[in-house]
């Protein structure tokens, strides 16, 4: 039943046994090894893991910036051959074109598709209206705050109507308050659009709040350590972050990632007793 539905809808990301290796000082190293990952049409999937684990590498493969050394990467059954407008990408750094006004930034992809001026304009304005940015349409990006810039970035990625949205730590550069608001805006937008999202983050709370499924990666070489379905109901609200289910998921994910963070930081920490001493907990790592 699920499969027939999946076939009809589009935006199915399918990574199988992906390996990415590079050479450093003549030795071959794996950044990512044996990663199999699946985003069903209309599903919101996050990948979390310690920094340097290759989560962004996975996104770059799906975006078409990077070819895997081994394995298969497909979107809707077709091998990924390069970047394209069928997969929208939102980057961590604000990637708006500084020489274009907000609306012109949103229109960029539509212009590339050869859409006429009037249609482009009305479409961009509709989307900007949804994101609450219409009154800023004639501003240059440098006149906007970080949160606004990133909203424009999301709107721009959505303008061409992609089936897949790839987000690489999109709120990583924002302050905590703005980030929470942006998460709510994103989950609302996704609720309406129902496209597949692959979301890269190191923020556990963010990944639980937004996702249907969370993949946890190991320290380098990055492998999938766990796949955790998030059974929280939709639509998601800010209140859910204090529900017992949320808390339990948070604890579980935190423990999983903590192991990997320690591994990534090197064995000497474990020998010092920190690896076993769970009571030192958050403060122990924070103090480092």
């Amino acid at each position, binding site marked *: 039943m699920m499969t027939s539905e999946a076939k009809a809808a589009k935006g199915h990301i399918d990574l199988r046994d992906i390996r990415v290796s590079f050479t450093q000082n003549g030795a071959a190293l794996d950044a990512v090894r044996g990663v199999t990952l699946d985003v069903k049409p209309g599903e919101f999937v996050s990948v979390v893991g310690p920094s340097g684990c290759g989560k962004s590498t996975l996104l770059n493969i799906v*975006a078409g*910036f990077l070819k895997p050394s081994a394995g298969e990467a497909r979107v809707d059954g077709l091998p990924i051959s*390069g*970047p*394209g*407008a069928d*997969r*929208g*990408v939102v*980057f961590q*750094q604000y*990637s708006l*074109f*500084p*020489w*274009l006004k907000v609306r012109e930034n949103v229109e*960029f*992809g539509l212009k*590339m*598709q050869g859409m006429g001026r009037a249609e482009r304009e009305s479409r961009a304005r509709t989307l900007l209206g949804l994101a*609450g*940015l219409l*009154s*800023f349409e004639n*501003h*240059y990006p*440098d*006149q*906007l*705050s*970080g*949160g*606004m*810039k990133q909203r424009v970035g999301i709107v*721009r*990625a959505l303008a*061409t109507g992609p089936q897949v949205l790839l987000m690489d730590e999109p709120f990583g550069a*924002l*302050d905590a308050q*703005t980030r929470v608001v942006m998460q709510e805006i994103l989950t609302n937008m996704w609720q309406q659009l129902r496209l597949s999202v692959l979301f890269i983050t190191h923020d556990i709370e963010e990944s639980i709040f937004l996702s249907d499924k969370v993949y946890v990666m190991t320290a380098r070489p990055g492998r999938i350590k766990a796949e955790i379905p998030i059974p929280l109901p939709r639509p998601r609200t800010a209140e859910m972050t204090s529900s017992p289910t949320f808390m339990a998921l948070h604890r579980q994910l935190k423990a999983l990632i903590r192991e990997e963070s320690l591994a990534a930081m090197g064995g000497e920490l474990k020998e010092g007793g920190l690896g076993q001493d769970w009571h030192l907990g958050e403060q122990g790592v924070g103090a480092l």
Partner: protein
Amino acid sequence: MATAIRMRSLADPPVAGAAAAEAAVQPANLRNVEEVMTPPLAIKRHDVGGAPPVAPAVAQPAMGARLLGRLRTQLGSLALSVLSIGLLLGFWYLGTEYRWDFYIRFTNVPTPGEVYTEFMGLIGSAKFQANIGISLGRIMLGFCIATGLGVLLGLLCGRYALLKGLLFPALEVLRPIPAIAWVPISIMLWPTTETSIVFITFIGAFFPILLNTLHGVAAVDPVLIRAARCLGAGEVALMTRVILPGALPHIFTGLAVGMGVAWVSLIAAEMISGQFGVGYFTWEAYSLIEYPHIVIGMLVIGVLGLLCSGGIRLLSRLVMPWQRVGTKENA
């Protein structure tokens, strides 16, 4: 009430006699402290009204004061400029009026008055105007060709390493040769004096423009190129809509430098091989012992150069309006 009192007893330094009694009460005290630490929340909300996101208007209330402040600083710098130029003129006047001769000889240098009178006589002369027009025409032609070719090659070489590898070794050999050194070979190469002068002007402007464009291409944020490709931009769109505008600030630096070098090259070329032009006029004045004309030629060259740089600055503002907006708020 009792809670408050026990709190106090915890906070106060224990009196020596009461120390034992204090210790006995300690556990109860602690429990009460915990109770006090988690009181029912009494958040008082202030009515601030809804704040829908509205584009910030350019700060209006401070407008008058800001304008006044700007006027004041501008008046100050204007006064300094007048003083600076006045000192220069004064030095020139004194030197020439009293025929100073202390190693540097002012004996044959015309006075400001002589130059002014001569200039008034010259300004209406068709020949003088033609000289200015011809120099400007040569600059425009040479500079425009240099801009077109320099920017085009800069963009292509910046994007395609193979092309850069092919062209740059040769260009690097030619680059250190000053434009003036090209004069003899240029006269041999080109069929007319006119084309050879334009060529030398071109050579002067070309290299700064090319190198700055190349710099500009390298400075374009790679994430913008990625973003454009994700939005479906092909190679041509990438060049014209991302790399070119991204490189514009550097390109304009190249244009400003190029314009300066173009004038240097033009005047030198006109002095050596020319007929007509301001450089030729200046050199001819020396040959014909019309000393005031030398200074007039120099001043005209200075003013024209200034106007051309000003024109480029103006153009850069028109072409890059986004450069003038600052970061107004930060998230």
